[in-house]
Every structure is written in C-alpha cells, then in structure tokens.
C-alpha cells in the first residue's frame, strides 16, 4: 500500500503551474464541453495527444494520482461494458451501416460500428480526465476560488469548493491513519484478507472518518466566522493573480479549439464523424 497518496495541489514551477487559475478554469470548461459534445474521432485523438502532452509538461508524478486513475478506470470500464450490454447495436444505428465481425449470441453481436462508437467514448475519457487532474493538481485552491468568483460564482460557494479540494489530502491522511488503527484491532484489510472482510473493514472506517471530519468542519467554520467571513456581499482575494499574455493565449487556444469542434458539426453533418459512409 502506498503510504503517501496525495491528490492535492503541489506547488511547482512549470508553465502550467504559473498560469492564472481563471485562464485554466476557462480552458478546462470550454474544452470539456467541446470534447463531451463532439464525436469527431480526429478531433478527439488530437485532443488526447494534446492533454497527454500537457500532462507531461505539468510534471505530475504517477503516485499522486495512481489511486484516482485506477478508480476512474474501473468506472469507465463499467460504463463501457454497460453501454454494450444495454444496446449492443447502438453504433449500427448511429452510423447507419452494419459491418459484422462476429454474430455472437442472441442480440449480443459484435460490429465494427459499435466498437468504433465505444472507442470514441474511451477517447473522451482520455482527453478530459487528464485535463481535470492537471487542473486540480496545478492550481492553488485559493486561486481556484478566486477564479470561480471572478467568472461569476458566489464567493461563498467558491470558498467552499476550494476548502473541499484543500481537505482532500488531509482526509486521505485521516483515512489512512484510521484504517491502520482498525487493522491493528484485527480488521484484515491487507491483500491477505477476503474481499467481503476488506469491504466490511472499509465500512468501519467511515464512522470515525465522518466524526473527525465533522470536528474539522466545526473548528474551521468557527474560525471563519470570527474573522468575518460571509458578512459582506463581496470580498477581495490575496491569492488572486493578474492576467498575463500567456493567460490570454491559453484562453484564446481554448476558444479556438471549441470553435473548431463546433465547426466540425457542420463538416460531419452532425456530432458524429462517420468513416462508414
């Protein structure tokens, strides 16, 4: 078991860390919309390569994200399988062509169209998830809050979100500590134990974890109240960064990419790029 998993902001000096939080947030939102709406495979492949390059540039270490990535991987796998189980010929319908690879059993056939459709789904994960992770790990949560506030979200909500992000590492640490002491009392949660036992053990951690998190929340909210948080309609931000040229460039790229993705609707006659036509 990795003893120091962290999914929180870690200061660094890469170009991506230095960018303005608002610029990054705009970039993330626009590109997520672009990638989520389009099914243009060429665009998605391009974006995947692009976000993997960004990932490399941002200098994030595998151990920081391994847990989350595994978690997301399992869920996306489930999702892909579920899509197939519910409508194994959805791709056929979409692309209005049917190239059978294997007739299969009953309704569960295997067609190139279905595979292609699901391949597109996978690509969507590959372009958006790295972007989200890059954003979370390279943006100072306070700056994030100020960015949210700047694009019009109420500062109370912005601050709540930032605090939540900030507490991820703390709560992870609590989780590990509690889990260790529970193991010491006899819950076998290492790989030696049975799955049911491990699940039951994890459920036992939840209660103390909630208690200790409630403690935290109470203390922090008292501290905030005593220092006048939430009294006025607006607030200023110590951590707010001014915009630089590079920030405008980033936002420009985001807008351009989004425009391209929407322009492709026109080219493809709809959201789907159809190689079977």
């Amino acid at each position: 078991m990795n003893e120091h998993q962290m999914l929180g902001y870690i200061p660094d000096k890469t170009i991506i860390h230095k960018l303005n939080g608002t610029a990054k947030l705009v970039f993330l939102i626009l590109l997520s919309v672009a990638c989520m709406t389009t099914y243009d495979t060429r665009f998605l492949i391009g974006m995947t390569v692009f976000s993997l390059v960004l990932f490399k540039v941002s200098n994030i270490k595998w151990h920081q994200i391994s847990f989350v990535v595994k978690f997301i991987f399992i869920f996306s796998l489930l999702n892909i399988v579920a899509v197939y189980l519910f409508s194994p010929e959805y791709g056929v319908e979409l692309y209005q062509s049917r190239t059978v690879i294997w007739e299969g059993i009953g309704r569960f056939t295997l067609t190139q169209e279905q595979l292609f459709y699901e391949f597109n789904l996978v690509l969507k994960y590959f372009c958006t998830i790295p972007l989200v992770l890059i954003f979370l790990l390279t943006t100072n949560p306070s700056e994030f809050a100020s960015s949210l506030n700047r694009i019009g979200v109420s500062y109370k909500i912005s601050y709540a979100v930032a605090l939540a992000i900030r507490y991820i590492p703390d709560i992870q640490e609590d989780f590990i500590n509690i889990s260790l002491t529970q193991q010491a009392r006899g819950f076998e949660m290492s790989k030696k134990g049975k799955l049911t036992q491990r699940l039951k053990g994890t459920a036992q951690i939840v209660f103390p974890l909630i208690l200790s998190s409630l403690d935290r929340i109470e203390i922090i909210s008292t501290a905030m109240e005593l220092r006048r948080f939430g009294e006025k309609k607006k607030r200023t931000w110590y951590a707010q960064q001014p915009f630089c040229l590079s920030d405008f460039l980033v936002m420009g790229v985001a807008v351009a990419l989004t425009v391209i993705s929407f322009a492709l609707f026109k080219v493809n006659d709809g959201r789907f790029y159809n190689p079977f036509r």
Partner: protein
Amino acid sequence: MKKPLITFDNFTFQYHSQAEPTLHNINLTIYEGEKVLIVGPSGSGKSTFAQCINGLIPYSFEGEITGNVMIRDKKLTDTSLFDLSFDVGTVLQDTDGQFIGLTVGEDIAFALENDEVPQKKMKEEVDHWASIVGLKEFLKHRPQDLSGGQKQRVSMAGILIDEAPILLFDEPLANLDPQAGKETISLIEEIHQKTNTTILIIEHRLEDVLYCSVDRVIVFNEGNIVADLPADELLKTNILTEHGIREPLYITAMKYAGVNLQQVKDLSNIEKVHTSNLKEQMEKWMQKKAKISVPPLTSPLLTLKNLTYQYTRNNHYVLNDISVTFNRGDMLSIVGKNGAGKSTLCKAICGFITPQSGEMSWTGQNFTDYSIKERADKIGFVMQNPNQMISKKMIYEEVALGLQLRGVSEAEIKERVENVLKICGLYSFRRWPISALSFGQKKRVTIASILVLEPELIILDEPTAGQDFKHYTEMMTFLEKLNEMGVTIAMITHDMHLMLEYTNRALVVYDGKIIADTTPVKVLTDPQLVEKASLKETSLFTFAQHLGLDDPFLFTENFMAYDQEVRLK
C-alpha cells in the same frame, strides 16, 4: 483611573441543551491594557466565559442569558458577531484546525479579504504583521509545514492584523512543545508591551503562562469566579489546589519545606522569588532526604536495531539509524520537538510504516516481517484523537470489537470486556452510547479497547493532551496501575511534568535520532539537551539554581521522590 473595557454584571448563562447554568452570577470588570490569566478545570465555565466575550455566545451557541455584558460601549446581546469581531480578536485552541488560508500570507490576510481591502494594501499589511511575528520568509509556506510555535505565530498575526483592542487566547499552549510554548508566551508579552492591547489568556498550564508576568489571575470553578487576585497573592493561598489546578512545582516544594509563603516576595517570578533565609530553609528540607527507589533489573521486550526510514528516496531521514530496547515493565516517555520523529518511530513499531532498513525483535524473536495485525497482538497503539479510533456506537460493542474479530467465544468476550471496563473505571457506563462521554472518557474507551486484547506493550500518543489536572491525574494513576499489573507503557508527550512524575525512563528524539536515553530528571537538568530538543527545564531546577543550592539536580530528584510519597499516602 483605568477605563473599564469588559464588564460582566450579574451575568448568568445556560445552554439550551443543559439543565443547569454554565455561568452563575458573574460580576467582573477588566480594564483597558490589562493582561489577565483565566484558569479553571475542564467544565469550569472558562471557555464559555471566553465565548461570551468574542460573541460566539449567543450567536453560534444559543442559550438563556440574564444580566449584562458590555464590551467597550457595546452590549453583548445587541451587537452582532461581525461588529464584535472588530473589538475582540480570538486565537483558538487548535492551531492546525483554524488555518483557513492555504499559505501563511493568505491566512494572515483572511480577515482583510473579508473586509474587501484592495490586494495591494492587503499585501503591505500582511508583510508588516508577518515581520512583527518573525514570519516574513515563510509567507509562501503552508502553515501546516511549520513548527508548532510558528503555527501559533501565524494564527496570532491573522488576528493582530485586525488591530482589535482586546485579544483572547483560548488555551494557546495546548499541542505545543515546551519550547514553542515558552516562545508563544514571550510573544504575547511582547505584543502586550508594544500595542497596549488588553489580553486575556485562558490556560490551565499556569506555570508556563507565569513565565511572563500577568496583572491578575481569575480562577473559575463550577461556573463561578472563585478567585480574582494578582498572581503573587493567589500563589500564597491554597485556592488553586483546592479547585483542581496545579500550582507551580517550586511553590509545592516551598510548601513541603514549610516556608511561610505569606512573607515571600515576588512569589510568581521564579527568577526573583525571595524571603529571609529561603535557601537555608530549602537546604534544611533537603536533609530529610527521601529514599530514591532503584528500578529493578528487567528483561528486554522489544529491541530495535539501526532503524531508518524516509518518505521518498530523496527526502531526509525521518528515522535515522535508531537503536533502542524497550524493557519489560518500563514506563517510559518519548519526548522531543514536533516533527522530530516520535510518532514515526511508534508507527514503525506498530508496522504502520515499513522502515527501509533495520531490524526489530520481540523477546529475541525476529519481528520485522510481522503484519500490523500480528504485531497488534503484542503491541497496542492509542492515538491522540479518540474520535479517530472509535467505530461503534456503544461502549460495550466498541471494546468487544477486537475480540469478536479474533473469533473469541461470546462468553469469554463478556468476561474479558467487563473485566477491562472495571479496570478502566467505565463499568457503570457499559450500556452508554459513546457520544455521551467526555473527551477523557472517550480516551479511556480507546485504551480499554486496546487493553482487552491483552497487549504486553501499550504506546500512547499524548495521553493527557487537553485534559485538566484532575483528569490528568486520573489518567496517569490509571496508567500507573496498568504498569504495576505488568504492562509495559510508552508515551509520546510534550508534558514535562508527566515525564518527570510518572515515567522512569525518557527517550529524547531529535532529528530522527535518539539523542538521550536516561532518567527524566537527568534529561531536564541538562541545559544543553533541553535546548537542543526544545524541552523546558523544570521549574524546580531553575528554582534551585536561583537559590544557589549546591546540587540542583539532587534537589529535583529529591522533590520528585518526596512528592510521589506524599501522593501515595
């Protein structure tokens, strides 16, 4: 004529959730520029009193109020928490929990952000206050990465920036190592001198606060003010001990020696205290030397050899070549600065982390490859925060859990659990929900749930943190009893008195190494060691030096032995 700043007039407060008032008929005036210490056992009402000043009562904690409180010219019940926050700045007890900002600079700026101060002005203000508390180079650091004393200074700067005329410190010394505690008290004094603010300090570590002078001490007990005296006058009485607050040890020593305290001058200042032939009187008492018990020879229980540990390959060593033996029957303390490696050492022993190199053996058998669970059969670990350990609703279930998981029969579980509950003084509560217990009682539940597994060694992280003298004594007497029953006990602690009074051996950890392994008295009478490991020498030693006694070391040792005898009676 001094100007009254805070006045309590026949003030009574009762929480809605409680049957009895927490504060009874409080009449009190605090004047501008005063520095006041407020002491009292847990549940005496001192924290409630503080909350009536910073406005958390009645705004966050509701209850019934009779009488009146005036803060400057504002009436408590008619003023909002917001308006009051300009008059009263509060430094909360838990330094870690109260950090809001992600960096030091941001945390200091928090109040200004809420006041919509423009960023440029805000940065100037932050720089100014950060340099006053000596944190200028740390503005970009995470508060969590700083030492205990520095953390305390961050929270102080965040309050000072408001320039409120009243500063309220709620147990500023809890969770601080002794050196950091001393620094904090000096800083408070410095602020008091420089800014002429009115300062209220709530704390039960009286001796540590008196390191700098205070104008007067107010003693709370059971919701009443039982004393309101200058420190010198208060120490001449027995009010403190009668109400479960520990007086400074040198005062106890003078009482043992039969010194007439009424004639002593500057009683609260250990560097100045004097009276006619004080030295002679103390020396005379020394001659009635108490017997110092020699600990019996013991056999090794747990041996660690060349343990090293680092978080990642390029980091520094958190444990650096540690070799030490825990003997059967030891009652030992592990002391040192925050972050020196004390907790990491204990985690390594319990198998929570895996050292990169080194060996551990248990009564001669190799222990290094044991799993957490296997180690837990021999070693119990009690965490500092009981809420992190409790996973059941009822006391009985919680204590029985470990046995159930080990497949012990119901009948045996019942017998063993009841037995342990009796030892821990929890038997009468056995059908209670855990949520109804106090912090100290919860801590006992966690100890009971470890004890029931019959470990031979119990490691406790700060067993008495945040507990008043009465609960502290109860907890320690209980641990002593366990020790007599043959359980080996190791405690991580910042409390020098605990180490001195209750343990027979001290391991001093510094920078991942054990730099001393000797008796507590020897540790605390070695000024170099004390300084290096951020400990605090005992007031007895300072007192003996001040008087010019021949052997301050022997004086300290004698006192401890004598005190133990008195307590046993």
